[in-house]
């Protein structure tokens, strides 16, 4: 299972291709051309087309589909947010370039730096919010925010609320950690404009991400109407942006849990004695080999009101009222983590297996604490695995609509559901294609950046 994108760098023999070699390449080129490139082009064309009442495509060029989620006159405040994020990214790069910054990153303090800088960025975003709120104070009802009862209608279970409370610190820590760890090690070897661009792009992403989280928090937790939102948060057209951000958050949160849950397991397997290792790996893999829908469905049996978990707890006398776990956002989160956990464990395991034990022992011999050894030696060396794992979990999780359908009771629409709906029930293929393009562009940029960074970075 070396299925790690961008991780296959076979040097190759590199002979010059003759006629036969070109003929042998033809099937690959044809396949990719016909079934990957052409469909994508069709999707692009669709996204710029209209449709008639019954939903058939009308080939008149229009930007209408994109306007439904991006309008230029609303973009200005977004640029402000991006600018701020770029600035903070630049500061991050600058710090990582100094000797002081590097030393801090290598030591056990290094774990604190992303947390601290995450909080700083977060603080800045909130500060801007407050300023903007005051500008729109007439429409922004502080009393309503203070008195809103989140454990009301929609958040049926207190955990759903806690999930969102957890979002904020976790996402900021995760987002900034990723940002820092991506910048820092390459930062000192060479400084080039490319790295600065990469860093700024990443911090841009982080900034938009924070803005999104803010939006979700404001709406979800405090019940604020869109009309009274700070402007920079409504930029992308409120509904679609919100759906998009919620989807990304679901995926990001699931990814974060997968890292936290999966890393220790991968480490344990990777460092287990040889005779155990294969068996343990097999144990992790077997659930992954059964249909994910089947496994998702099993959670319905477990989580429903009169389901396995509730009957168990009721019979044991631990609770008196059943938990309302199905359908809920918590259930969706469990389903996502359960589906994608093996995708996280495997690549991390691969890189831990390659990890040279002598290096770890050397760190301990030199008197490093476990935390410092982890942060200074183990984590940097296994980072490719973690990055690959994040890609393998995050990318499919954003587009996943089936888990949400089965476990979420269709309460919340995720971007996957919306796209699926455009191609089935809503009969709006152009708009669905435009949303698909949004996802595609986002992932292309992510992948390109990751790949470039790795191709450029020494082993």
């Amino acid at each position, binding site marked *: *299972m070396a*299925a790690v*994108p961008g*991780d*296959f760098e076979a040097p*190759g*023999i590199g*002979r*010059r*291709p003759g006629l036969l*070699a070109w003929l042998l*390449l033809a*099937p*690959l080129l044809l*396949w*990719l051309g016909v*079934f990957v*490139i052409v*469909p994508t082009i*069709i*999707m692009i064309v*669709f996204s710029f087309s209209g449709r008639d009442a019954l939903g058939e495509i009308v080939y008149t060029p229009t930007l209408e589909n994109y306007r439904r989620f991006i309008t230029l006159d609303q973009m200005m405040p977004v640029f402000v947010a991006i600018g701020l994020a770029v600035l903070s990214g630049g500061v991050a790069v600058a710090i990582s370039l100094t000797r002081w910054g590097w030393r801090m990153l290598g030591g056990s303090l290094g774990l604190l730096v992303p947390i601290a800088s995450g909080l700083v960025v977060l603080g800045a975003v909130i500060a801007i919010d407050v300023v903007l709120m005051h500008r729109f104070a007439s429409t922004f009802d502080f009393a309503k925010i203070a008195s809103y009862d989140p454990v009301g209608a929609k958040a049926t279970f207190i955990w759903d609320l806690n999930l969102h409370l957890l979002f904020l610190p976790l996402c900021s820590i995760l987002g900034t950690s990723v940002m820092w760890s991506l910048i820092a090690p390459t930062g000192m070897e060479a400084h080039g404009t490319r790295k600065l661009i990469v860093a700024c792009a990443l911090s841009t992403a982080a900034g938009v991400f924070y803005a999104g989280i803010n939006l979700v928090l404001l709406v979800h937790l405090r019940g604020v109407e869109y009309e009274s939102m700070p402007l920079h948060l409504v930029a992308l057209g409120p509904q679609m942006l919100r759906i998009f951000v919620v989807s990304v958050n679901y995926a990001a949160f699931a990814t974060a849990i997968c890292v936290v849950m*999966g890393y*220790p397991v991968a480490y*344990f397997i990777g*460092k287990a004695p040889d005779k155990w290792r294969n068996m*343990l790996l*097999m144990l992790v893999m*077997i659930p992954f*080999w*059964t*249909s*994910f*829908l*089947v*496994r998702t*469905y*099993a*959670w319905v*049996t*477990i989580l429903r009101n*009169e389901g*396995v978990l509730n009957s168990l707890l009721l019979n044991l006398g631990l609770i008196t009222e059943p938990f309302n776990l199905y359908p809920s956002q918590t259930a969706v989160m469990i389903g996502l983590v359960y589906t994608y*956990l093996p995708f996280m464990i495997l690549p991390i395991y691969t890189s831990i297996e390659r990890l040279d034990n002598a290096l770890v022992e050397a760190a*301990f011999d030199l008197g490093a604490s*476990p935390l410092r050894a982890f942060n200074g030696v183990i984590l940097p060396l296994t980072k490719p695995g973690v990055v690959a794992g994040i890609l393998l979990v995050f*990318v499919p999780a954003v*587009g996943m*609509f*089936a888990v949400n359908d*089965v476990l979420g009771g269709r309460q919340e629409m995720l971007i*996957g559901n919306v*796209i*699926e709906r455009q*191609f089935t029930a809503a009969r709006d293929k152009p708009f669905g294609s435009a949303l*698909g393009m949004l*996802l595609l562009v986002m*992932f292309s940029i992510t*992948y390109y950046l990751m*790949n470039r960074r790795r191709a450029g970075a020494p082993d």
Partner: protein
Amino acid sequence: MRRVNWMLGIWGVVVLLFLYFPIVVLVTWSFNDMDYSTQWNQFTTRWYEAFWAKCALDMRDWFAAVGDRLLLWSAGWAAWMKMAGIASWLTNYAQSSPEPGWIARQFIKLLNVAGAESASDVLKTVPPQVRGQISRLVEGLTNSLFVGVISTFFAVLLGTVSAWITFKYKYPLHNALRTLVAVPMIVPEIIMGVSLLSFITLAGTSLGYIGIPLERGYLAIVIAHVTFSFPFVMVTIQARLAGIDPALEEAAMDLGATPSVAFWKVIVPYLMPAIISGVLMAFTLSLDDFIVTYFVTDGGSETLPIRIYGAVKQRPAMLHVVSTVMIGITLLMVLMSEIIKRFNR
């Protein structure tokens, strides 16, 4: 350090429990004598009996329809492997016996013993809706296996050959090609699904005029599955190729082998472990896929995940049974691959 290891071990056990709890529930609940509800009632095997009855009936019909053509095909296979003597005998036999033929009759007899004879009666013991569900799920299962085998074959063929030639030759635009191959791996499935759907509705009708009817259905599903699984095969094989000695092929050719012989006798055996894991991976990906298939399937060709999705909100009993059977098939595959691995060693 030891304490850290202990904690890691406990955490590992917790995570494994998390991974296996749902599966245990599924397997246990497949013996639950309850039709609609998921509350535990009492132990029963009647769902399995009904499931097997349907399978046996289907298989019997299949054997009756296929007759001894089964033999004919194995004969063709043998002929291909140049074992001409037995092959011609087999071919003659299969052609001479009209269907269902002796061999097929033996199979039918066997199945009758195993339950097909009384199958209709067994099926009548479950509610009619459950009967309908069973036949839909069984059909889905066969579709899944069928699509899985075909798409795995093509994915492995395409992946292996492409990995080898891109390793051996340096084509212009090497990097662009590599990125392109990675696209199906990194693009979210839903995008691949909707773009293939658009492609099929648009190109399908126009290709129909030149005699290539591309519609939603088996062909479309196989194409989709090959598209998203061959890059994974390719990556696995490239990983193995990274460890190869480039002189290996040269040495074989120096000893007088032609390039094709060198490929089949030297390179392929060396790549065999990677090819086997590629086969497993492609097959699993194909069996597991829901999202891409969802967009390109039509009624008759729906695979098991689609059928499960359609049935998820209905009666749970049969779902548990089919899931358990799926898990069984998986375990069997894992065991087989382990045995093959041992054997190869």
